[in-house]
């Protein structure tokens, strides 16, 4: 940082040139109140010199009022946002923080760790490339560690940094660090987490956060910040696995009809043979406008090719019907189109999920009506055990069969985060009541008529209600 300041003072234009080409990394921090998660983030911002004097002065004042660290400045107060949370001393919602180094801009999703906030953690994890899991060195791997790791793997985060915190309270013991790392490796293997990294830290005093600690001479690895700075998070993607959910049809005049959207996978070039889903019609790419290239002076810049995650506008050779919610793909790599999907659903609403009730399902830019026909099993987030249930409450995670009223093009979540994910919106309250990841797409479309065919007479409905009210042990489904 000191060097950076020198560079800034001496050659700002050179500095800006270097910083035009920074990468971006989004990470999630998982831990509970007493793990020192907010302290860790506060410490990172502070040591990375992202905290201004006036903010620090404000926090110093607040430390005396709400702080939990005695005379030291409570780093957690730098990040605990809402007044109500500060009073309670806990983080209850997802908060986003930012800082940058020479190499990268970082977006931190700071989420609460308690079980009742599982949905918040899922939310934060949905956009993260990396997760930092905090473990209290004195306590080792707890139920919550397992829960956090499960969510991280569920949301497809491939890189997990295990920060073994409060090393100062175990005399910076290498033994404790090694044992904890070993136990966690087993957990990571069980959950199929691809890459794990272990660091001994003390968030309170800043050991191995930004600066190397003198108290852990036995640790030869990187500090937390230098690891985040250098980690390779790029994913190999095949150009032909092009996925383009159509967002908006741009039609300024009779001569131009462009399809706007964000490329979520692969690449596209002028002349490419493309297929429109779900209709299956084919055409060729006539022109590509990369929105990023547009300037005030030139509204008609086009380019030869574009790749994810660019926001572009495509025009086609043939005038065929394409609208919002459709997906444009390469004709060489067409995903499955179906209305019957096997999904992993996270329920986020206080009102429980009812089988066969209609919800709005928003997948990418497509909104279709759909319902959950069957719960295959619910997963206990603490033990990973599977359980049979007939409805889902808030924070429940379950494998379900989802039936849509019309077919959509979809990939598995593990293949593509953006074409394999969806949210569930309640049609009366308009709340986001659930979020899901597509596990598999059924080949058959014959489930389409099923939803409409299940019509019950009033007496059948009354009988169903009677059974549900008087014989709950039968676990009869609602019709």
């Amino acid at each position, binding site marked *: 940082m000191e060097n950076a*300041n020198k560079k*800034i*003072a001496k050659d*700002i234009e050179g*500095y*800006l040139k270097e910083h*035009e*080409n*920074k*990468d*971006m990394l989004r990470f999630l921090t998982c831990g509970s109140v007493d793990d020192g998660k907010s302290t860790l983030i506060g410490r990172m911002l502070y040591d990375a010199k992202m905290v*201004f004097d*006036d903010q620090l002065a404000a926090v110093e004042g607040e430390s005396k009022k709400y702080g939990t660290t005695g005379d030291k400045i409570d780093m957690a107060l730098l*990040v605990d*946002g*809402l*007044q*109500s949370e500060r009073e309670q001393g806990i983080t*209850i*919602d*997802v*908060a*986003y*923080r*930012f800082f*940058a180094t020479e190499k990268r801009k970082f977006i931190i999703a700071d989420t609460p760790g308690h079980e009742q906030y599982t949905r*918040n953690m899922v939310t934060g994890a*949905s956009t993260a490339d990396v997760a930092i899991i905090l473990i209290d060195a004195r306590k080792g791997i707890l139920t919550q560690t397992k829960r956090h790791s499960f969510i991280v793997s569920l949301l497809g985060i491939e890189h997990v940094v295990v920060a073994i915190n409060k090393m100062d309270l175990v005399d910076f013991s290498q033994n404790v660090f090694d044992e904890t790392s070993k136990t966690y490796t087993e957990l990571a293997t069980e959950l199929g987490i691809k890459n794990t990294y272990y660091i001994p830290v003390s968030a309170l005093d800043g050991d191995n956060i930004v600066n190397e600690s003198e108290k852990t001479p036995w640790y030869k690895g990187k500090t937390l910040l230098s690891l985040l700075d250098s980690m390779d998070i*790029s*994913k*190999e*993607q*095949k*150009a*032909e696995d092009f996925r383009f959910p159509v*967002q*908006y049809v*741009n039609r300024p005049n009779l001569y131009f009809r462009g399809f*706007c*959207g*964000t490329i979520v996978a692969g*690449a596209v070039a002028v002349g490419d043979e493309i297929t429109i889903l779900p209709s299956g019609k084919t055409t060729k790419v006539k022109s590509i*406008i990369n*929105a990023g290239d547009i*300037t*005030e002076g030139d*509204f*008609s810049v086009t380019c030869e090719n574009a790749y994810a*995650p*660019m*926001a572009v506008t495509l025009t086609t050779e043939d005038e065929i019907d394409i609208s919002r919610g459709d997906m444009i793909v390469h004709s060489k790599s067409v995903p499955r189109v179906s209305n019957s999907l096997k999904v992993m659903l996270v329920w986020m609403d206080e009102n429980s999920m009812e089988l066969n009730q209609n919800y709005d399902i*928003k997948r990418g830019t497509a909104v279709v009506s759909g319902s959950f026909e069957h719960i295959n099993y619910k997963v206990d987030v603490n033990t990973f055990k599977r359980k049979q249930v007939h409805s889902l409450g808030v924070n429940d995670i379950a494998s379900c069969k989802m039936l849509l009223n019309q077919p959509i093009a979809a990939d598995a979540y593990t293949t593509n985060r*953006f074409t394999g*994910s*969806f*949210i569930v*919106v309640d049609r009366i309250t308009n*709340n*986001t009541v659930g*979020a899901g990841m597509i596990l598999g797409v059924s080949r058959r479309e014959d489930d389409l008529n099923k939803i409409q065919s299940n019509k019950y007479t009033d007496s059948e409905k009354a009988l169903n209600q009677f059974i549900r009210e008087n014989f709950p042990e039968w676990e009869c489904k609602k019709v």
Partner: protein
Amino acid sequence: MISKERLTHLKQLEAESIHILREVAAEFTNPVMMYSVGKDSSVMLHLALKAFAPSKPPFPMLHVDTTWKFQEMITFRDQRAIDLGFDLVVHSNPKGIAMGMSPFKHGSKVHTDIMKTQGLKQALNAGGYDAVIGGARRDEEKSRAKERIFSFRDKNHRWDPKNQRPELWNIYNTAIQKGESVRIFPISNWTELDIWQYIYLENIPIPSLYFSKEREVVEYEGTKILVDDERMPEELRKTAKKEMVRFRTLGCYPLTGAINSTATTLPEIIKEMLLSTSSEREGRIIDKDQEGAMEQKKIEGYF
């Protein structure tokens, strides 16, 4: 072909913001973009031009004019509207004008409430907008760090921070009932540095108030403010001194503190910002009124 190519952070942020703007245009019937003439608004306008080219942005720009903005802001605003041909809607609270509202007389709290918060509500009700695009960033203030990109507002434009809709991936829930609205913040994930770097890189026009020059300022409530017109009380004006100053944010001139500076170019501004030890909002008087001031204002409907 296998590629591992990644976009730079600014290109990723730009693409994300464009995605958000297009989502608004596609999902709402009557959106509007807040245009406050500042640097963040300038970036938003630029992003909107990019998102919908070769068309013009399919929504108007709304400026809530408190009648106490820097004069240059108004000139700049009107020129931009002519140059770019966007629809500009300007609203000032007529009740406030009738009262002779003045931050010098009524104080920052009352002025901001009547001219900004109430003025905004009037403008939104009059326009019947179901989506209001704003330029707030999450790095500006602690209560903003938890706000969603698509942030739901009830019929009274109130924000309920404890009951926000979960927001996952890049999928935004845009469902509302009649009379309700959503505020959308496309540059949520940008920092002040990102904004400046982008302005520099894309050569985006901004008011000259951001650049340092010799200006007449007076000491007022612990900050330096510009002598922008004759409405400033006589006894204050008498104390005016010429100093090299610029502004880090633009708002109502009596409520916006100037900083001493020699920065006359964008790189110099960025240099000053990077080496500075105080945050951007420090010059804003409204945040200091009370602890949690911004959270309270936001609940009431402020941007």
